[in-house]
């Protein structure tokens, strides 16, 4: 990192090489579109590398890059109202009225939300189950179990209270389990 901050192109390339797979994988599972995930990954790295001098070494570099990547994905999903967003509304919605008010309306393109999920790479049962999670749950569960982050690291990365992270992860695992068990029956 120190080398990269001094402006060595080779160090920049090494950072891209080291983090391109984890960052791309997170984004791909968030937006479920390869080309779009690659655009967002590129945007993430450009933002990170152009802002490298503002990096504060007391934070994990990977946390910083995942934070930027996740923000890019969430911003995109919010703007475009993609079908990767939950059909059930905001995670903070507690009443049926709140859920209806915050739920997404899908466009009438003749495609179901699961059509895109049926792609080759993301077509396994567990990937389909992840696709059904709310984006906020998805980020948390992927950072926890794919990237091996602690709850505290996820809270710091996603700027969420620790209790919220725990709740999201427990709910996410519960939803995944129910979905996977239903498919097996």
């Amino acid at each position: 990192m120190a080398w990269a901050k001094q402006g060595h192109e080779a160090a920049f390339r090494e950072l891209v090489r080291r983090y391109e797979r984890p960052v791309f994988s997170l984004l791909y599972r968030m937006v479920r579109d390869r080309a779009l995930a690659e655009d967002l990954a590129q945007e993430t790295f450009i933002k990170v590398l152009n802002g490298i001098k503002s990096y504060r070494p007391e934070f994990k570099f990977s946390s910083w890059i995942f934070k930027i990547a996740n923000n890019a994905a969430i911003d995109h999903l919010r703007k475009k109202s993609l079908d990767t967003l939950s059909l059930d509304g905001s995670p903070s919605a507690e009443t049926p009225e709140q859920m209806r008010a915050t739920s997404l309306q899908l466009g009438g393109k003749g495609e179901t939300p699961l059509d895109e999920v049926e792609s080759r790479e993301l077509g396994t049962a567990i990937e389909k189950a992840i696709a059904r999670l709310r984006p906020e749950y998805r980020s948390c569960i992927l950072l926890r179990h794919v990237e091996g982050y602690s709850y505290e690291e996820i809270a710091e990365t996603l700027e969420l209270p620790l209790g919220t992270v725990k709740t999201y992860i427990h709910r996410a695992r519960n939803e995944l389990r129910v979905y996977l068990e239903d498919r097996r029956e």
Partner: protein
Amino acid sequence: MNHPEMHLTTDEIELWAQGLLGAQRAFHLSDCSLCRDIADRERKVILELVQLPRFAPADGFADRVMAKVKVPTPSGDWQER
């Protein structure tokens, strides 16, 4: 630490699934079919998650990124590419 006879918490089940739960609490599982059932089901999901592959972007990704990055020179100037 929770009493050995208390059911496992969600956090403890996750620790157990990762092989990190202390022996005393893990012992509870051998006596409690309810916790064992929940823990087994939870472990299956966690195992599936940790085995997920990482995907790679298309070839030349680093080149495409580097073409759009301003590389700072050691003197502190930014070099447009």
